[in-house]
Every structure is written in C-alpha cells, then in structure tokens.
C-alpha cells in the first residue's frame, strides 16, 4: 500500500486498516480477565473503610476456615517476606498491605485467595479488622499546618511540630529574579487561582493480573495489565526477591491504559504471593470502585498563576506557585529528576522572556498517583495554566483572545527554540495552526452570532448563550534522553529488534506495549516504509518480556518518538546489511548500489547498480541469499537481523490549536458542546487514521474533565466518586462530531520526522472547553468540572471549590 503523508512518499505510511481489529470485532481479543489457567484461583482485596486509622488488629480466622478459601494474606504475612512495603517510582515507599496504619479510604489491608471470585469476596466479609480512626488530612491546603496530623509517621523525622510532617518536595524552575524584573516593568498583571482537580484515567478495562509461580522451576509468569512490562519485571524482582531472569511479564490485550496501568499495585503483588503460597495460578481483577478509589489518579494541582504584559499586550513573563496533592504515598510515575513532571513547559506556545515556578508536593489521606490520564507528565496542567491565564489576561485588558494569542505566539523562525524554563522545542509553526483553526471555525461569524444571542437573551431572558474558547498548546513527549530521564534508574531509551526471514517476511520485537494505540499496524508500517515490504508481511511482537528487547513501555506519548525511532533505525541497519549481501550477489561495490523502496509488494525494495539499468536484486532475494551459503566479506554477518537501542536526543514537541463552541443554558447551567475544531501538528503521520482516532479520544477526555469528571472527597476523606454513577464520563451525547485538520511540521531529530500524539488532545482540549464556557457566561474564572450546578453557581457569583466535597 502506498501513501503520501507530510512529504514522506513510498510504501508503508497511510490510513490503512488496523491488523488487530479482526480479533476485537469478533470478541476474540484476549484481555487479562479472559485468561483461565488450569487450577486457577481467584483473589480479592479487603480495603480500608477509613481515610486515616491505626490498625489495632486483623483477625483472619473465620475467613481462613471458609471452605473455598486457600490463603489469606495480611500485612504481617508480607512483612515476614519483607514485602509489606514496596518502592515507588518517586523515591518513596508505599504499603502493599497495611501493617501500621491505613492512609486512605480504599487502601489494601488483606488479600484472600479462593476457589472462585464469589467465594473470595464472601471471605473478605469474614476478616475482622479493628481500627482506631485518626483525623485525616483531606484538604491539601491544610496539609502543612503545624497541627496537621502526620500521615507518614513511618518515615524518619516526620513528627516535629514544624508543619513539615506532610511535606514531600519543593521544586522550582526558571529564573525568579529575571521574572521579577519583567513583572516590575509590566503595564498589566493578571493573577488567578486555578485548581486542576483530581481526576481518574478510568480505562474501560480495570487493572488485573494472573500470577503463575512454578515451584519447580522457580519461574514466575505474570499476565498483567502492564503498560511498561520490562520496568514491571525489574520491580517484581526487587520487591519479591525473584531473580529477574526467572520472571516473565506478559501483557495481553489491554483495554485502555491512559497511564492507569503504569504503576505497580498491591493487588498484582498479592496475586504473586498468593500463587507462591498456594502453588496455583491466582487471578486478581479489580472492580470499578477499586479502580477509581485506589489506582493512579491524575492532576490535583492547586495553582496560583500570574501573567505580566506590556501596554501593547505583549506577554512578558509568567510566575506560578503550585501545591501538588500527591496522596498518601509519593508514587507519581515520571522521570525521576522531574518531581513535577514536565510542568516546566508552562510558558506554552508563546515568546515569553522570563518565567518562574515553584511546586510543593504534599501528602494527604488520599490514594497515591498523580501522573496519569494522558497527561504527558503534567503537560496537561501546564497547558491548562497558561491557556487559562492568557484568556484571563485578554479579558482583563479588553483584548480578543485570538488576537492576543496570535500576537504572542512563537513564529516558525524561532525554532529550535529554547524556552525561558530551559526546554528546547524542536519545531513548530504555531500561527499557521491557529489561523487554520480559526478559519475552520469561522471565528468572525461565531463572534457575531455570540453577540446576537447575548443580546436576545438580555432582551427576553430566554435562550442560550454562546461561548467560543480556544487553546494553542505545545506538548513535550517522547521521554527521553537517558542522561536526563530515567525511571528508578532505568534510562528511558527503547530497544527494538528486527529480523527478516529467509522468505522475505519479517518480525519486529518492541519493548513498548499497545493499550489500543494500534502498534501492530503502525510499527509494521514503519518497517514497510523502510524496507518496502507489505505491511502484512511484518509481524509485531510486544508485551512479553521473554520475547522482546528491554525498554520503558508505552505512556507519555513515547511509543512513536522512542520505539518508533528504534524500529526505523533497526530497519535501516537491516537495509545496510542487505546492501552488503546485494553487493556480493551482484558482484559490485556496495557503494555502487542504489536503494529503491519499491511499491510495497512481497518482493520488498531492491538494490540496483547505479547507472546500469536492469541489474537489481530484491530484498526478498537478498533475504534468502543472506541465509544461504554465500561467501560474505569480513565484518558482514549472514542473515538479516538487527537490533538497536534508541536514546532520543530530545523530546518531540507536537502542538495544535483548538477552538471549542458551546451553548450554555443560563437557567440550568447546562453546557452543550456544539462544535470542536482541532488542528493538530504531530509531524509526519505514519497512519493518519490512527492519529485522528487518538485525537478524537483525547478531545472526549477534555470535554469530560472540563464538564463532569471529578474525584471528590468529603471532610472525613470518604471517596465520593467510586463508581461510574458518581464519576461521570462523557457519552456520545456529550461529544460533538469533532472537526479535525492537520498541519505537518516534521521533527528535525526523529528519523521519521514523527512526534508523539496520543495525549495531545487530552492535554490541549480542557482549557478550550473551559474558556468557551466562561466566555459564554462572562465569568473570569471558575474551576473544573463545569457541571450544570457549578456553572449555575458561577453565574450567581458563588463558584464552587471542586477539590473537596462540593458545597
């Protein structure tokens, strides 16, 4: 198949149907809960009903005598194996099963292994736990009060009355003094408090595992919802003390991840211990409430932002302070030198002379996590901050938000651009993206319509109000250069291995793992693009640590930027091997051969002798010869196989411009997202259909977060969003027919010119929706989620604080 995308002509690239779909439409996907091994037992987790309580006693006698129960595991059981605590991705430890205290509602206290899932649940009710309730810290803003209860008294030096008992970290970036200078000379400063509330990635499939320990060989096989199988293997090895080569992680089909399946959860480890104790495979799959209550939440950033501008509306500087609610354990999954993730890109798409931010992380009695939900390591929070601040500035200075943006955007001649906080943006054409979006939306006509509607509403008191919101976002994805970026000491470079079989088909082994992104197709397209083979002739292997090279996994939109580059490099290495073999076959010097990628037939590309028409050899012919008895020169291995480890030189910086149009009923506060225009630039698109699909999904996330999604707590730390009846997600009724367009600005450092895109829309869309709603109701700021009740209250001048229970 042939496609021409973004200047990359040839076979491979293009909107081809996905190879994986055949099994899914037949109901023949193989998700973790579909796995049934002989003799398999079922696990269930007993969870804390309290947000903060001391454990006085745990009595498992009755549960153990349940006829179908095979094992009951408590914190004490694990402590005896030195497994009661596990390391987190952020230099902290987290409880596997609580031994001393419970620190959030839903925390894991005990684990039952039984013969079926119903019996396991029954037995949970037979475990008696005596708790001594403690005062919880629910409001992050109270966590550093001198009299705040200390959550992490398991850590040293945490009991002094210094108000630091719940302090996790301070981090800053940018130049405070230079920023101060800009603020001092500014003609205008706008400030705003913004909460990016706690939300949850909520993939449709919850987290789960089947752990299978073989007592004879000592080999542990873990089938699990793992976005990062290789990183998980190292963690299992460290925590369970099983040698790494005895552990095999298999990630089967994964029903959505969005960062929820990066973390290591107690249920996974308890299933492993359960399997070791019983000698049988143990399945554990959490239910939806468990997923929403205990696994990686996202955001929970309390931001105070200031933006300074001169009298002409040129943005001079941005200053931010952030309080980050990390929950009871610091378990954010991000490159370890970046405690606030990539929030440092908060200067966004603008030419800003100076910027500074300070982030303080704190413990609260809530579930751990914080970096998930397609956030690109907190670029979501950064984009929300800057795009909201720019709108506030426009409002405060009486400027049109589109014009204000256009006047301050970085222009294409500024790339590569070093931002005031030290990030090097690889490439971009922001004005073109915004212009395209405004043209598609017909911005002037929308403004005219808005005026008419408002006038009609003011005349009659009836009808709806129209709002137009936009955002121009810059993403930072594809972590990352291993000198700067590691997770638990593992540099974020990805391996890839490619082998061309004697008959000219190929197998590509990847370290990353799809959760719906379509790797089996996209990565086959990359090989097809490089070698000219048909896409169907390339098998893609992923998600099995015994059969794939090492790498850090799929999250942070890193598969195409890192593993995609690795696949491309491995394929070009194979092509160069093929050149050497072709030179022997054709009896010419390798340098005299010209590569022609062909048209994607089973022959693959071919090498032809320069200047001698008609003399050439196809990749398929070369593949057979390379496996045969050919006399190859020194230094040329036989066969066609190559591996590589790709260490990206920089992140890639996809970007886009979004325009959202809403109609708000001021009587009820109800918001109707009428239109959403999204212009995305992620460099070269390998499969535009897949790219657009991912953008659609991210736009729905944005509508969800802006309008309805919220993990809320009451004053006692009770979780108020523990089911899909309370944690609201957008359905087809709340989503408009997305209107998409693309611009293509290739990444200069990625071998294919591609950038990551999986999270762009989740990152870029929430501010566009919020800006639109606030534009409609003419309110300077109100926090997400803008539910009807919240919009209505904002209209009355009484906005709600969303981070603790709505009141």
């Amino acid at each position, binding site marked *: 198949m042939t496609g021409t995308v973004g200047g990359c002509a040839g076979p491979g690239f293009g909107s081809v149907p996905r190879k994986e779909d055949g*099994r899914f*439409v037949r*109901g023949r996907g193989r998700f973790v809960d579909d796995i049934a091994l002989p003799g398999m037992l079922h696990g269930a987790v007993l969870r804390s009903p309290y947000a903060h309580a001391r454990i006085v006693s745990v009595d498992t006698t009755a549960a153990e005598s349940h006829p179908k129960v095979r094992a009951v595991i408590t914190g004490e059981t694990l402590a005896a194996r030195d497994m009661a605590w596990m390391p987190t991705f952020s230099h902290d430890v987290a409880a596997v099963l609580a031994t001393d205290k419970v620190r959030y509602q839903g925390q894991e206290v005990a684990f039952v292994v039984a013969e079926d899932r119903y019996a396991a649940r029954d037995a949970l009710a037979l475990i008696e736990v005596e708790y001594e309730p403690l005062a919880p810290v629910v409001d992050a803003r109270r966590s550093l009060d001198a009299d705040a209860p200390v959550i992490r008294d398991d850590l040293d030096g945490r009991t002094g009355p210094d108000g630091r008992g719940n302090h996790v970290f301070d981090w800053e970036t940018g130049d405070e003094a230079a920023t101060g200078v800009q603020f001092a000379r500014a003609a205008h400063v706008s400030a705003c408090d913004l909460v990016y509330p706690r939300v949850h990635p909520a993939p*449709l499939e919850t987290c789960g595992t089947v752990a299978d320990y073989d007592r004879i060989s000592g080999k542990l096989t873990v089938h699990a919802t793992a976005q990062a199988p290789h990183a998980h293997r190292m963690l299992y090895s460290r925590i369970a003390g099983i040698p790494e080569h005895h552990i095999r992680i298999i990630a089967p089909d994964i*029903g959505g991840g969005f960062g929820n399946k990066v973390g290591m959860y107690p249920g996974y480890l308890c299933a492993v211990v359960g399997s070791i104790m019983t000698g049988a495979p143990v399945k554990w799959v959490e239910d*939806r409430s468990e997923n929403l209550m205990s696994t990686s939440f996202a955001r929970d950033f309390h931001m105070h932002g200031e933006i300074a501008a001169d009298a002409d509306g040129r943005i001079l500087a941005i200053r931010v302070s952030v309080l980050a609610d990390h929950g009871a354990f610091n378990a954010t999954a991000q490159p370890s030198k970046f405690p606030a993730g990539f929030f440092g890109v908060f200067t966004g798409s603008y030419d800003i002379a100076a910027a500074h931010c300070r982030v303080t992380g704190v413990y609260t009695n809530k579930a751990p996590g914080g970096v998930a939900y397609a956030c690109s390591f907190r670029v979501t929070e950064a984009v929300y901050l800057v795009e909201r601040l720019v709108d506030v500035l426009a409002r405060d200075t009486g400027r049109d938000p589109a014009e204000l943006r256009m006047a301050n955007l970085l222009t294409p001649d500024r790339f590569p651009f070093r931002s005031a906080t030290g990030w090097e943006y690889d490439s971009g054409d922001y004005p073109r993206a915004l212009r395209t979006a405004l043209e598609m939306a017909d911005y002037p006509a929308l403004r005219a319509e808005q005026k008419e509607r408002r006038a009609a509403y003011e005349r009659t008191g009836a009808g709806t109000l129209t709002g137009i919101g936009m955002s121009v976002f810059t993403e930072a994805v594809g972590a990352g250069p291993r000198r700067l970026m590691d997770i638990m000491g593992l540099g974020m470079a990805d391996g890839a291995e490619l082998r061309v079989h004697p008959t000219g088909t190929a197998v590509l082994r990847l370290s990353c793992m799809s959760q719906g992104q379509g790797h089996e197709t996209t990565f086959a397209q990359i090989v097809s693009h490089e070698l000219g083979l048909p896409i169907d002739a390339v098998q893609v292997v992923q998600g099995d640590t015994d059969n794939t090279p090492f790498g850090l996994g799929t999250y942070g939109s890193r598969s195409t930027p890192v593993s995609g580059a690795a696949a491309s490099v491995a394929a070009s290495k194979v092509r160069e091997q093929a050149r050497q073999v072709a030179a022997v076959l054709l009896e010419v010097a390798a340098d005299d051969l010209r590569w022609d990628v062909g048209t994607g037939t089973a022959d693959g590309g071919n090498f032809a002798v320069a200047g001698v028409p008609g003399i050439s050899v196809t990749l398929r012919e070369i593949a057979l010869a390379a496996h045969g008895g050919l006399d190859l020169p020194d230094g040329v291995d036989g066969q066609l196989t190559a591996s590589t480890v790709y260490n990206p030189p920089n992140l890639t910086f996809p970007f886009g411009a979004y325009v959202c149009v809403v109609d708000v009923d001021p009587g009820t506060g109800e918001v109707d997202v009428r239109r959403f225009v999204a212009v995305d630039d992620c460099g070269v698109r390998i499969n535009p259909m897949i790219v657009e699909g991912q953008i659609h999904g991210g736009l729905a996330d944005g509508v969800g977060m802006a309008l309805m999604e919220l993990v809320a707590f009451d004053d006692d730390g009770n979780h108020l969003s523990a089911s899909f009846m309370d944690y609201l997600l957008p359905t*087809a*009724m709340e989503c408009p*027919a997305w209107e998409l367009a693309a611009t293509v600005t290739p990444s200069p450092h990625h071998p294919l010119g591609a950038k990551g895109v999986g999270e762009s829309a989740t990152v870029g869309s929430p501010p566009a929706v919020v800006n639109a709603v606030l534009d409609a109701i003419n309110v300077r700021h109100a926090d997400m989620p803008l539910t009807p009740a919240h919009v209505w209250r904002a209209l009355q001048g009484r906005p709600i604080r969303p981070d603790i229970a709505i009141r």
Partner: protein
Amino acid sequence: MGVTVNGVEHVREVEPRLLLVHLLRDELRLTGTHWGCDTSNCGACTVWMDGLPVKSCTVLAVMADGRSVRTVEDLEGPFGLDQIQTSFMDCHGLQCGFCTPGMLMTARKLLDDNPDPTDTEIREAISGQICRCTGYRNIVAAVRHAAVAEALGRGDT
C-alpha cells in the same frame, strides 16, 4: 436452569446470585462479552436476551432461564462477518476493543429496528455505553457506514 446461548442450549446448576455476565464469561467461556463497571453505566457487557439488548452485569443468570441469549461471538455467520463488524473495522470504530462487543450488539439491534438511523439516533442508541478511546465519532461513522452498506445490499436507493 437452562439457557440458549448463540443457538446452543446449556443446562446448569448455578448460584442464584450468579450474574449473567459471569455465566457467559467464566462458565461458558464466551469472553467476548466484557464488564467494565458493575453499575449498568458502561455497556461493555451488553448482550441480547430474547432479542433485546441487556446489560448482563445487571441480569442474574437465573433470569435468563428459558430464554435465548446472543453475544458478540454470534455476529459472524457462515458467510463471514456481520456488516457492522466490517464497518467498525473500515471506519476505525475501535481502538482498545474493550467496548467494542457491547457497541456492536447495540448497533446491530439499532440497525435491525431502524435501518436508516440519523447520527443523532445513533448517538442516542449508544448513549448507555462508554468508550474511553474513540471519542465516539468513528463509532457513529461505522454505524452509518453499515446502514448504507446494508441498504445497498438490499438494493434500496
């Protein structure tokens, strides 16, 4: 109890509390039907019972006694895939595939009842179902695509 699933009769002793979704998945090993919420909100568990879509996480297995259940595994016939399956593939109406079986069962029923639905009617039909990946646009497109293809197949103009 006795239940016909995809044309095959099964007679089983079951606990009265066993959910239909677990009967299908765990006992009959028809794992195409998924569960995503247990609260009737996500629709991943949608199957047909006596020709009507139901959320099998909210149906007790014994309630299916004497009835006939159809799951996603039955969509493909002896002559190949159902048009709705083909259309989902052609229109990229799925990504992770977890919501897909439920979406397909609802969409098939919609098209049986209303062979020419508008986009709004399609959105209403799937409004009891959640997809976290696709933003719904391509699902709507896939259902429309199937409607058009089936109309052409019937010779409708």
